[in-house]
């Protein structure tokens, strides 16, 4: 319990740091580019949403820094991000809520699958040390992990979509179909998700394989594993319930640290596939100079990562009795 409270405290500090960075970035930039963009909306917006944008971007010169900092914090915590300038006059929150399910589905599922498959493959490779899996997997995934995510996406579009015509090139669903909750539409969505999910899976799985393999090599050499062998336990039982369980613990912490990298890659994958998720929206906001939307998205992605880290902490606490002991 104490472990989780400490981790929660740390994640709250991280969230505060992200909020503060977000607040100061536009203020530290020379020439305040946001001001020019906002000028055209003055008069078309109602005063309160204009004010919220001004506070978020640091344009309102009518109050001191500290006061606007606290107003910004209050606005952000109550979900008042103002109005999107590129989807004018739709509020930022509703623009984001349209994109969020797409990203949660695509990135969430492919990240979890990558973690599970990668961890299992890494454990097996280390278990059969020197076997063909152990000889083939590490070098090939060292190379694959050095590929840019978006380039793997381009390659798979060219190969599977343009050349072989197996999968659609772009988007989250067929544009001519109206989104309804039918099997046909769900199938269409899954059909469109195959290539982007494959891209994220292929480029992120290598990290899990390598770290799990390396943890496992250390754990397998431990005395209690030898003891389990000596007792004549079935190898499969030793692999998963004795060695694998303990080798997984550092990997769960690693999950927290690598998540940022996976999310970063996923942003570019969504961009390549025009996938209607949060990452694609972020880059659209950048090219449309929609600063309120951009900043809200950065915060949203940060919160998502922090929540995922907390979940992996909870899993660690459940699996590792040492974290539960009160010191």
């Amino acid at each position: 319990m104490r472990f989780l409270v400490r981790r929660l405290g740390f994640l709250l500090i991280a969230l505060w740091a992200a909020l503060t960075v977000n607040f100061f970035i536009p203020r530290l930039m020379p020439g305040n580019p946001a001001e020019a963009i906002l000028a055209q909306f003055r008069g078309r917006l109602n005063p309160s949403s204009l004010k919220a944008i001004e506070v978020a971007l640091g344009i309102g010169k009518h109050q001191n820094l500290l006061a606007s900092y606290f107003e910004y914090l209050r606005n952000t915590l109550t979900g008042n991000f103002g109005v999107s300038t590129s989807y004018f006059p739709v509020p930022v929150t509703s623009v984001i809520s349209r994109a969020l399910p797409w990203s949660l589905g695509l990135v969430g599922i492919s990240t979890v699958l990558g973690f599970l498959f990668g961890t299992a493959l890494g454990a097996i490779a280390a278990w059969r040390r020197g076997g063909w899996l152990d000889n083939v997997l590490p070098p090939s995934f060292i190379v694959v992990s050095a590929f840019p995510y978006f380039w793997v996406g381009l390659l798979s579009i060219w190969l599977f979509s343009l050349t072989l015509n197996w999968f659609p090139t772009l988007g989250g669903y067929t544009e001519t179909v109206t989104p309804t909750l039918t099997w046909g539409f769900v199938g269409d969505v899954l059909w469109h998700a195959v290539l982007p999910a494959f891209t994220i899976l292929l480029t992120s799985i290598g990290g899990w394989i390598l770290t799990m393999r390396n943890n496992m090599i250390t754990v397998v050499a431990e005395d209690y594993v030898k003891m389990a062998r000596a007792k004549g336990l079935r190898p499969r039982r030793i692999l998963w319930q004795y060695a694998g369980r303990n080798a997984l613990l550092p990997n769960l912490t690693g999950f927290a640290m690598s998540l940022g990298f996976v999310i970063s890659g996923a942003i570019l994958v969504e961009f390549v596939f025009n996938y209607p998720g949060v990452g694609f929206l972020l880059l659209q906001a950048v090219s449309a100079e929609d600063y309120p939307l951009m900043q809200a998205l950065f915060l949203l992605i940060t919160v998502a990562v922090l929540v995922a880290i907390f979940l992996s902490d909870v899993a660690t606490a459940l699996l590792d009795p040492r974290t539960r002991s009160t010191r």
Partner: protein
Amino acid sequence: MSWDKIRRRLSAGGRFLLRDKKALVGSIILLVLIVISAFPSWFTPDDPTAEIYNPGAGLSWAHPLGTTSFGQDVFSQLMAGTRQSVMIALVVGLISTVLSVVVGITAAYSGGVVDDVLSLITDVILVIPTFPLIIVIAAYTKSASFWTIVFVLVVTGWSYGARQLRVQALSLRNRDYLLAARARGESSWYIIGVELIPPMTSLIVANFLGAALYAVLAAAGLQFVGLGNVNTQSWGTMLYWAQNNEALSAGLPLWALAPGVMIAVLGSALALLNYAFDEVSNPALRPVSKRQRRKVAL
């Protein structure tokens, strides 16, 4: 350090390179790319920016990788773009590593409140997703220059190494030979510089390679989405122009795929070297020989 000692170190390094296939392949690739980036004109038969050729041409002897839809030679652009990626890798790798070493070792060596504060900062930067942050910063600066990209990549890229180095330094801190140096009354600078850092060399090198790899991939991603300076020569900006002109569906796949291959080649070289150095600092990871394998199977 005497000359003799330096020579011994160097020959040990040479032997390591020859013995470890991953390290050998990685360093050969890296060396070739460094030569290309130092003397790009030796490798570019055509002016990389000239838009004078048949646009959208396929493979030929004159244009081994075809031309772009602007009529530029793809191969020449690839060679000319090498410099920026290699430079970003080396510069960001170097500065981040220095920062990681300073923060990580200061935290471990000082302990107490200094350690708490530095570790907290390191961990916070580690968990905040950096790429969206880089995108936001680059969006405000508009077409980030080389040094802007270096700056944001260093700021976001040093924390992983600092954390690893701190853990390593902590485990060394109370070894007898360090206590002995302290008992002899050596200065902190001597202890850190001569006793603490040398045993950590392989980890520091591995961190340099990891930071360089991160820089190559992140910079390419930034330039690909158009947040770099799109008028410079680099693999990332080539990808940007290819994507903007729908090179894939226009039947010019090499224009879009070749720069990615180059990024992947540079990245793989760094990753292979990185892994080889990991095996140096953790002998358990080294490939097992046939004889050892039999022992393990037992």
